[in-house]
């Protein structure tokens, strides 16, 4: 990836990291293998099985992690994110979810992403580029429960904002965890307000909880200003 989106994702909420260097040959081979593996998954069109409960949209689980001890500058976010699988029904969702470890059990700088099928968890995706996200910073120990409640609300279409929701991210960091939900149109204040209110309700957040809305445009600008990468955020 060699464009403005190669920049760092500075705010740690499931975002990108810069790609200033070229991966080594062995890394390239591994990435090609990963691409092949992911293409196999992509080609498999998911549909609800007989008797299963269809979801309004198909979704895809993604996972990303910054490799410990390796400078972030040698990795591209897109290369570092791994597709786990897609599902089209409630039952299929539980199959994946039940076989994945919980965010609270993740170590290091890791993210789970759950996005509508066809939308990459990246700022530059067409569905995201005009959008933004609500961010909630959590004390350690709350991520698993909040993540579960968040994605159940999203899959169950509890946000009631039409096509606006793009996906959700949980980011496990050193001293805190972050959950965020991404929507398509950052300028639509009625929509973002409704998402905020629904988040408060489904996560049972106290009224004084700080919720931050950040446009992806701002995230890009901020990350470009932070170059070169200088350490953990």
């Amino acid at each position, binding site marked *: 990836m060699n464009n403005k989106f190669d920049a760092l994702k500075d705010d740690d909420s499931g975002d990108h990291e810069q790609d200033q260097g070229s991966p080594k040959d062995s890394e390239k081979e591994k990435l090609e293998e990963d691409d092949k593996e992911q293409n196999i998954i992509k080609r498999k069109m998911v549909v609800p099985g007989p008797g299963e409960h269809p979801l309004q949209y198909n979704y895809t689980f993604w996972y990303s992690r910054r490799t410990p001890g390796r400078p972030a500058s040698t990795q591209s976010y897109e290369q570092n994110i791994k597709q786990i699988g897609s599902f089209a029904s409630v039952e299929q969702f539980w199959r994946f979810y*039940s076989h994945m470890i919980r965010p609270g059990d*993740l170590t290091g700088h890791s993210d789970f992403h759950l996005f509508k099928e066809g939308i990459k968890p990246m700022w530059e995706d067409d569905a995201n580029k005009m959008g933004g996200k609500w961010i909630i910073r959590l004390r350690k120990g709350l991520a698993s429960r909040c993540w579960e409640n968040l994605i159940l609300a999203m*899959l169950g*279409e*509890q946000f009631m904002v039409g096509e606006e929701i793009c996906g959700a991210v949980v980011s496990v960091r050193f001293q805190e965890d972050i959950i965020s939900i991404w929507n398509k149109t950052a300028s639509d204040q009625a929509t973002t307000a409704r998402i905020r209110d629904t988040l408060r309700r489904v996560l049972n957040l106290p009224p004084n909880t700080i919720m931050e809305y950040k446009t992806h445009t701002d995230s890009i600008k901020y990350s470009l200003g932070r170059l070169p990468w200088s350490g953990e955020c």
Partner: protein
Amino acid sequence: CSNCEQVLFDIESLKHLKFADTRMEVSRRRVLLRHLEPARPLRRCVHSDVGNAHFYFTTYLVQIEDTCILDLGFLFSVERISYTREVLIGLASCPEAKKRPEYLPDHPIVGRKIVLDLFFLTFFNQRNRDCALEFTASLLCK
């Protein structure tokens, strides 16, 4: 619900309409502005595309449940597939939800066996959980 009754009523009434024909319509504007005079009906030819719209419209209504008509002027919306948290959690217990996905990458975040610490097991009220499981069982029996 009243919306559903309205939908059924509209389906029945629309079935008998032939949109390709000319039909009589009352101009609302004339009625409002010249209310002292008898409303004069206008003869208007409805474009044949409306016939197609009628076909798709009625097809939609017949095929999709929970449809709600917002306006008789062919403005309508279809409700989305939504589930409450309780229903979703209830469905986690059904056998289909416990199978290992066919395409699951070999990765440290993926467990060999099912991850048992589902949050509803610890956080969900036991009585509600029983209700959810009963609900799930009833769905599976259908």
